[in-house]
């Protein structure tokens, strides 16, 4: 079962992504609003599911702007005194914010709720704390949270360490080249419809049909940030990197379900949980770091992980250097004359790529690929198994990956969540693009 519109959207996405990378370091920085003082409002608005359906939400907003799903990503520097003023514009019940991981948050204004102080329509409540621990955090409503989190009142907060913008924590091993947010949430359409039409609802029967990364369903996850046709879902989730780079993933479980997030391509190293370094003691570095290819992000948890990829030890030259040889390969499984590690003058003329794994240099591609008519081509396949390569494809097939990137699906491995309200594919899914290094 194929979804043609998905393919068309993917075309746009990958073309745009590719072009952006040429023009600059797109997506390397997580968009958000900068503190330490934030004037947030809570208001009703509308988002679009990956199938185009408009859905009522309650969202946090930056001042007088529209409500967002998720709320604005709050960017804070370590040791700042953070002040968050929250005004309830039109949510018909008291709203609030809780900040898991922050200690000693002071709340003033509004009225006392079960967990924290909260604001009814027209009221403002203020939360103050010191951003003492750098890291990745979640914020969400602490009022009637089984409904209000479902309705969209959540967001991410990033506290940047004193060590610098390219570090996740005050530890040299937390260095990254590019960073992306992976905020996971779900949506039970019945509850939103009930709120929209003033009907009764029961949050204990929670049964979501949409799953989101940074507030978007695939394939919208791969659109640009701030595209005008998703005015209340400004954040994309389109990780891109080059071999040898360090990509920081900031995982957040913002909904009510646990999601086993799986990265194709390689393991990642988990460096922090709940905004605390995986460290046995101060000064020990990240000595409790774990490598994994999946992280079961539970509601309320955050994880930071560093993903690296060089394609080492594939056993063949992924840059296709063997293609530059004078003579054609003698077959699928070449004889010794075709494997030339000693440098007979042929391979030596082929420059090593940055971060290339030297022992694989020049090793031939190990198998014959089937004839084109025996294959179904992915829309992001460009006809070549090589990074930065390009090959002939039948008309209308593949080719939406002009840079010859290696593309890997990153997704919830609860595969049901790769759907948008009964339509596959979609949901809690995006792709990592590993781009070839550009020759100057």
């Amino acid at each position, binding site marked *: *079962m194929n979804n043609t519109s998905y393919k068309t959207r993917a075309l746009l996405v990958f073309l745009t992504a590719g072009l952006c990378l040429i023009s600059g370091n797109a997506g390397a920085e997580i968009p958000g609003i900068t503190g330490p003082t934030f004037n947030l409002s809570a208001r009703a608005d509308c988002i679009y599911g990956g199938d185009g359906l408009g859905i009522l939400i309650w969202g946090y907003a930056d001042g007088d702007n529209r409500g967002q799903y998720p709320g604005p990503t709050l960017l804070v520097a370590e040791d700042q005194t953070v002040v968050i003023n929250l005004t309830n514009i039109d949510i018909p019940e008291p709203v609030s914010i809780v900040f898991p991981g922050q200690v000693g948050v002071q709340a003033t204004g509004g009225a006392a709720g079960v967990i924290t102080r909260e604001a009814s329509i027209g009221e403002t409540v203020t939360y103050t704390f010191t951003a003492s621990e750098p890291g990745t955090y979640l914020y969400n409503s602490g009022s009637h949270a089984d409904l209000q989190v479902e309705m969209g009142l959540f967001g991410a907060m990033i506290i940047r360490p004193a060590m610098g913008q390219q570090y996740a924590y005050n530890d040299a091993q937390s260095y990254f080249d590019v960073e992306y947010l992976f905020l996971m949430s779900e949506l039970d359409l019945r509850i939103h419809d009930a709120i929209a039409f003033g009907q009764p609802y029961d949050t204990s029967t929670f049964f979501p049909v949409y799953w989101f990364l940074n507030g978007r369903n695939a394939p919208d996850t791969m659109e640009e940030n701030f595209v005008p046709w998703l005015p209340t879902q400004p954040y994309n989730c389109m990780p891109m990197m080059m071999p040898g780079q360090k990509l920081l993933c900031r995982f957040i479980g913002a909904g009510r379900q646990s999601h*086993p997030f799986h990265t194709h391509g390689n393991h990642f190293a988990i460096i922090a949980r709940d905004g605390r370094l995986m460290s046995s003691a101060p000064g020990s570095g990240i000595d*409790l*770091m774990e490598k994994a290819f999946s992280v079961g992000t539970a509601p309320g948890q955050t994880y930071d992980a560093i993903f690296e*990829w060089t394609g080492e030890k594939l056993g*063949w030259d*992924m840059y296709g250097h063997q293609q530059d040889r004078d003579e054609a390969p003698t077959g699928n499984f070449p004889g010794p004359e075709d494997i030339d590690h000693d440098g007979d003058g042929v391979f030596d003329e082929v420059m090593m790529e940055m971060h290339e794994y030297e022992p694989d240099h020049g090793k031939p591609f190990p198998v014959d690929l089937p004839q084109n008519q*025996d294959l179904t081509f992915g829309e992001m396949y460009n006809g070549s198994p090589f990074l930065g390569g390009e090959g002939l494809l039948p008309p209308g097939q593949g080719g939406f990956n002009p840079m010859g990137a290696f593309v890997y699906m990153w997704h919830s491995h*609860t595969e049901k969540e790769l759907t948008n309200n009964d339509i596959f594919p979609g949901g809690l899914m995006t792709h990592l693009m590993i781009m070839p290094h550009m020759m100057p």
Partner: protein
Amino acid sequence: MKVQRYKNAHLILLSVLMMTWPVMAAVHVQCPGDIDGDAVIDVPDPFHPSNACLHLGAGDGFSIMADGTEMYTFGFSNLTGVPPEMAMHHGMMAAQIPAPTIEVEEGDEFYLSLTNVGMMMRPDLFDPHTVHFHGFPQAASIFDGMPGASIAINMGASLTYYYNIVEPGTYIYHCHVEATEHMQMGMLGNLYVNPAQNNLPDGTDLNGFIHHTGYTYAYNDGDGTSYYDVGYPLQFSGFDRIFHEKHLAVQPLPFAEMADTYSMINGRGYPDTLLPADDPSRPYQPVTSLIEATVGQKILLRLSNLSTTDFFTIRVLGLPMRVIGKDAKLLRGPTGADLTYNTSSITMGGGETNDVIIDTTGAAAGTYFLYTTNLNFLSNDAEDYGGIMTEIRLN
């Protein structure tokens, strides 16, 4: 045998399918050293001294649930050793649940040929298939099996994947085409890589742990942490009865309503989990989950979850669990910190693997239990006393 009746359908459907195949399509196994195309090495190739080959078929079939219900499935079958001209015949309606277990050795060059034998019961479908070697480190997208980023094989043809096996551990594999559907339908299997440490010379001192020939480990631990006497892969998954029924009835598939009702270990619900391997009553579910050991032995459980809908928490009652690996990595920090830990339950989402060692030293002989603490899954759909449960029998 119930399943047998569908075999008659093969021949009719086969002839229909044959007409739709492209002219060039053919079963084509690639395996250095294999002369006759059956993925069995006939004359070792001196340039590929340690290669391993496997030929999988991808198609459909039927499995029998523990309550006796017959369930339409997609799955893989093992065609290794089958002459290429017979591969389609052997592969059709032979979907195994779980897929044939893949066990390879660190250092292997692994050539995995996948032949799409078509879906006999759904002649309206022309789905391609892939193999996703889930967790393969430093993967290249061409062999990753993710159809959007690379290629998938059409009916009647073969695609050979190449994996340079350099990292030992517990992985999994599955088809990634229309992943929600194909995985719900059963295209899931156990896959693990044995470490080079198994092959050390007798008497090698591993930091005080003396290795002997025949000793087995889960990882290259350097100290015997992952030593085990008997090992069992246990893969947790589930089927949504309605999804499978609608699939067979060529109805729109209920993605939003998907909820697994048969929870299983290695493709069987309790008490079928206890049936021996290759039990004739379950011809397409050959993997047993009955764990047998002798008191004093160490049992390695290679746990994985490939449910498309649920996390599972897995418990062993009466015996201690020590978690030594996760996601095909020994639990050890970058500076050597020992991150292994004792527990009596472990939680896994889809796509996660864990290695657990049960040290039976000092335990009484007898029967112990492994089951999910998500107790509502101790059921086979509407039947009680089923689902994710098996026994550990100590002699």
